[in-house]
């Protein structure tokens, strides 16, 4: 295992990934907590306020200048969703000391800065700076409203929301517009303190000859201040208790209009995964259906029918779901849906070859082998393992994919259920009324 793990305290883990592939060292800190409708917006606001200023770097200007002095070390933070968990992420990327024009020690500085931003915010009388809170509330509202800007992503987000109305996975990771205004500085400060007590904390460093930073972290006063915790984050359970039976007919069809030129079609499929090893079978199934240029969707929707430029699918392991995505001419909706659903039917009827299975496995293996070639991907992979409560190395993962058989794919194809068809279109009536 390349990821050397050390438990600092219960619920707080340090990971060191040794790699000589990059010019940079990457330092990351992740907070994981279950997604909750009432808390999600506040928690999304926290990193935005934290990056505004800390005790020792009270303004963004000072923070930015300090980072720029460290040869443009870059700080970034963001919100993610992993299954039913909200993940608050903080990163600093710094140049590996070997490549600095002058000898300088910046690793510890990068780490100290990261910890300072997360654990030692600028406080006034025991709460956040109200001016920072107010201005970041306005920014968060912008982020939430900007959902509509990227039409393809918006369509996917909306399909997820419709499909998982009563499930934490359906919660939007940045929260909800109507919940922003009522947040007070006090509320937010309390939410931050609760987060630090309850969240699962993982601290990562990835790079070459970083030395032993574990001790530095372990003895860091800001880490020593933290209490041990039994984190509440949810390990995702995808093996279903109830049986999923095959269905082409969707449970739900949603159409939404916007000022668009292209229609965006999303279809969500539930997979009836019954055993642990079927998680990899599902990966192969998805690759055959819509994984790449030789997939059923690409070949039939794009290459044969000439209906789309984008036609493919993605598998979300944490929820055993596949989302099919395609951008089409609005009047071609019926034709596109028919062709797509036929592919699912064909897979169920075993209308695919050993070669399709082998191609799909090659594609998956190549993408697994590519993981250590990108610093953030590798780090994210190990964090994903951490969150799934398992420690599958990439080698083991490759073997699991290798073992998948055509029969297994066919078996799983009997337990694919079309859940939601979502279509983002314009307000016109093309296709229904012919225009002169």
């Amino acid at each position, binding site marked *: 295992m390349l990821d050397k793990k050390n438990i600092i305290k219960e619920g707080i883990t340090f990971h060191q990934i040794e790699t000589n592939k990059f010019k940079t060292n990457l330092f990351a800190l992740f907070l994981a907590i279950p997604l909750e409708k009432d808390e999600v917006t506040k928690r999304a606001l926290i990193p935005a306020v934290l990056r505004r200023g800390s005790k020792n770097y009270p303004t963004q*200007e000072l923070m930015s200048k300090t980072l*720029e002095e460290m*040869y443009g070390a870059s700080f970034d933070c963001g919100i993610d969703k992993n299954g039913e968990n909200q993940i608050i992420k903080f990163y600093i990327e710094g140049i590996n000391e070997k490549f600095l024009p002058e000898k300088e020690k910046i690793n510890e500085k990068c780490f100290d800065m990261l910890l300072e931003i997360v654990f030692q915010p600028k406080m006034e009388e025991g709460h956040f700076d109200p001016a920072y809170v107010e201005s970041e509330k306005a920014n968060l509202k912008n982020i939430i409203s900007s959902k509509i800007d*990227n039409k393809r992503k918006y369509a996917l987000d909306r399909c997820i929301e419709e499909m998982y109305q009563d499930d934490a996975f359906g919660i939007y990771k940045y929260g909800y517009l109507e919940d922003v205004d009522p947040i007070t500085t006090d509320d937010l400060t309390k939410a931050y303190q609760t987060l630090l007590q309850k969240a699962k904390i993982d601290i990562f460093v990835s790079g070459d000859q970083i030395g032993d930073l574990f001790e530095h972290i372990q003895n860091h006063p800001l880490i020593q201040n933290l209490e041990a915790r039994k984190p509440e984050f949810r390990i995702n359970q995808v093996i279903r208790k109830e049986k999923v039976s095959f269905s082409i007919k969707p449970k739900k069809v949603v159409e939404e209009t916007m000022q668009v030129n292209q229609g965006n079609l999303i279809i969500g499929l539930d997979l009836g995964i019954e055993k642990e090893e079927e998680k990899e079978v599902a990966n192969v199934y998805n690759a055959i259906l819509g994984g790449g240029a030789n997939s059923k969707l690409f070949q039939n929707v*794009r290459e044969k029918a000439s209906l789309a430029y984008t036609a493919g699918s993605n598998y979300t392991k944490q929820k055993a779901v596949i989302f099919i995505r395609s*951008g089409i001419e609005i009047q071609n909706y019926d034709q596109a849906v028919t062709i797509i659903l036929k592919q699912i039917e064909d897979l169920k009827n075993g209308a695919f070859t050993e070669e399709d299975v082998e191609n799909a496995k090659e594609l998956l293996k190549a993408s697994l082998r590519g993981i250590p070639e990108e610093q953030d991907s590798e780090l994210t992979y190990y964090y994903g393992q951490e969150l799934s409560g398992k420690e599958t190395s990439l080698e083991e993962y490759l073997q699991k994919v290798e073992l998948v058989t055509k029969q297994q794919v066919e078996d799983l194809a009997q337990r694919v259920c079309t859940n939601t068809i979502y279509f983002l279109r314009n307000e016109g009536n093309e296709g229904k009324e012919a225009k002169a």
Partner: protein
Amino acid sequence: MKIMESKKIQEKAYLEKLKNGLTIVIIPKQTTRKKYVIWGTHFGSIDNHFRMPGSGEEVFIPDGVAHFLEHKMFEQPNGTNSLDTLMALGVDANAYTTNDHTAYLFECTDHFEEALAELMDYVQHPYFTDENVEKEKGIIGQEIRMYDDDPGWQLYMNAMDCLYENNPIKIDIAGTVESISKIDKDVLYKCYQTFYHPSNMMMVLCGDFDPEKTLKMIESHLIEQPKQEEIQRFYPPKDEKIHKKEKVVSLEVSTPIFMIGILDPEEKENDSVKKHMAIEIALNILLGKSSPLYQKLYEEGNLSAQPDFDYEFSEQYAHILIASQSKNPRKVYEDFRHEVKKLQKNGITEEDFERCKKKLYGNYVTEYNNIDSIARMFLADWMKGNNSFEYIEGYDQITKEYVEEILKNKFQEDKMIISIVENTNENK
């Protein structure tokens, strides 16, 4: 092979120009298992009027041909598609078209030899029929539609329209549904014959390679071709002044987005790398994350992230771009112009200059993190006549005085434009 080296980042690039004119650059990286290959031709969307070297025929082509040709290169006479063939090997293959070049690429951990053979086979063997050209129109039509709904792309195209009256950079790379309807197999073959000659092409390889061995392998896949003379390309005269001061359109976006453009009408100089770096430093001092102007605009709620900076240039065009999201783009524009004047008058401080230079160095080093970004960077820089190492090796020769000179000469108010995409709903 000629060896170029960057001591600062400990990387080497091996260069060879073959007899048939093909340029090959190999950047070996022993620390990776991956191999990345990109093969580019100096043919992009701006090359729409030229004389064919063989016949001497003068050709005008519809908008979007370079990109259309890129889509069609994968198709083979036996009915197979090279993209599928490569994907079946677990090789990630792709292609793209820009203003000034078209590139075919793949990356892999295994099956390199087969993949290289496939790449070199399909790029050297075009196969266009009336039927396969017709079929592609539906697919590209949807790609164009996708960009029609992309506010960022609309913003960029409108900025080009403001900056240039005549330059073909204002033509959409993919063309329009109307212009691609005029494309047929004859025009594709004409462009192929003209621009896909090895003397107009460059191949860059980065990753787990032995340069000499790899070079031999590439040579063995090249088919023999008669020498070709230089391609004569026709462009309208260079724009001396901007076309229009601003362009505003409405789309369904949450917050308006804007792009400030500054035309640089000067002929491309030999030291374009130096100029590029000085412009980046100037932009960071003007409106970077640590600048007083950024802080002010952030606190007023007029900016929420550092704008994206870019300096795009070739023999035919050059301009600075600054883009971001703002509820009040005009205010940002006004403040920016004011700040430019202030710095032109007062100069920049030694402290700001040194700090931004350090930041820039870090950015350049970071670009060497991934083999795909290295290879793409070498190709793109080469198409402009530059060597990518010049950035990392030359950064410490930039002086404060030079940045000040650039600030005075390249940030002139009468060369500035703004493109804005507003929110439809707020206008109703």
